[in-house]
């Protein structure tokens, strides 16, 4: 529909924004992307997301949808081609469970492990939590090409950051959360996902990412040390 308004407000380095963008591209939806400087939040951001003041923010014909996983389900319900979620209620429950699990356990532990520049003990603890979480996810892949089966689905998009951001975290944090011996299925999925024709053309520049996360980890590490 040419007269449809579809906008995505995001941040260039945020994996949560890319989840949404990948979904839109996979469904062939035309949209306008608007970059937000999350370190200098605009009045527009504060108006559209007063609760969290975060991106991504999705706008469809004037209606504002927030929270990347909620946005994914919304997109799937509005644009029915190339379905991202399975039909079966139990399978839907499983993918929602695992997406939440990864967001609650893996993202933060990996990120803060990277940021633990001062405290080796905390870093080691976080790495352990991250690897335990990754082990569970490895088990979930169960020999499939994608979590969605033969094609990319909701859970691939939710976990997609693992294929591209997590290696950057590993590099910046001098860690090795992604152990190819422990997680062969995930490593294989990572290559498949990151090289998918839609995904590979919609990723942030790696060199910029490394610099960005190096800066972030210095700042966060200093803040954590101060708050001790």
């Amino acid at each position: 529909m040419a007269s449809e308004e579809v906008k995505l407000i995001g941040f260039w380095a945020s994996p949560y924004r890319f989840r949404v963008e990948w979904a839109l591209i996979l469904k062939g939806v035309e949209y306008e992307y608007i970059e937000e400087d999350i370190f200098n939040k605009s009045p527009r951001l504060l108006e559209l997301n007063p609760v969290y003041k975060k991106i991504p923010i999705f706008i469809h014909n004037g209606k504002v949808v927030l929270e990347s996983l909620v946005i994914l389900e919304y997109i799937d319900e509005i644009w029915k081609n190339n379905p991202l979620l399975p039909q079966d209620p139990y399978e839907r429950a499983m993918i929602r469970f695992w997406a939440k699990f990864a967001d609650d356990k893996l993202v933060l532990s990996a990120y803060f492990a990277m940021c633990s520049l001062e405290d080796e003990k905390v870093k080691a603890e976080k790495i352990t939590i991250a690897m335990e979480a990754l082990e569970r996810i490895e088990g979930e892949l169960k020999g499939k090409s994608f979590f969605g089966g033969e094609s990319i689905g909701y859970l691939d998009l939710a976990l997609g950051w693992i294929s591209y951001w997590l290696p950057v975290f590993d590099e910046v944090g001098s860690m090795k959360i992604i152990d190819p011996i422990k997680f062969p299925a995930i490593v294989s999925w990572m290559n498949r996902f990151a090289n998918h024709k839609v995904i590979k053309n919609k990723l942030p520049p790696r060199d910029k990412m490394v610099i960005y996360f190096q800066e972030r980890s210095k700042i966060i590490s200093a803040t954590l040390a101060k708050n001790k």
Partner: protein
Amino acid sequence: MGEEVKLIGARGSPFNCRVEIALKLKGVEYEFIEEDLANKSPLLLKYNPVHKKIPVLLHNGKPIAESLVILEYVDQTWEGASILPQHPYERAMARFWAKFIDDKCMSALWNACWSKGKEQEKAIEEANELLKLLENELKDKKFFGGDNIGLVDIVADFIAYWVGAIQEVTGAEVLTKEKFPKLFEWAREFINCSIVKEKLPPRDHLTGFFRIKLEAPDTLKYNPQVR
């Protein structure tokens, strides 16, 4: 029908209560298995190895954990009253607020009810901001779901019932009629719904439990053995 529905839960838990309300709304018959959270059963560890928490729904032997995930499953699987709205945008809104309650409100309200002194002042300020957002979201509706209870109402069961019980025990004033008249009224309507009333744990059980907690302050950190 040959259908087997079991719920592993704990009757004092708001997360458990959410699922029981949902099953009741849909008219689903189920077997309830009370879990002793201080002494977790092999059954729980088998069916929720990842989190080892209740509630866990077992439908024909297949386990589903995480109360929000269970609520969506129940809504999709059984006919009857809708838990989520029909329209995609309203569904997105319901999911957003349900997540907001779980991610932000639960721990903030718990802390506001239990902390003391300066820490409590700060915690109540934070709780006030969150409750104000909910009060605004309610607007002039009877329930968050409109004329009937829906996902957000069910997920907010802790706010409607448990907070009042804790306030009675600690004397905290977190959710009061003066501060949040609409929310206060909503809470009253919610707990008086026949379906909800039947599934709420008895008030004196809750206050009794919370009085014991008052005597054991080191168990007060928000660390739910339930999801």
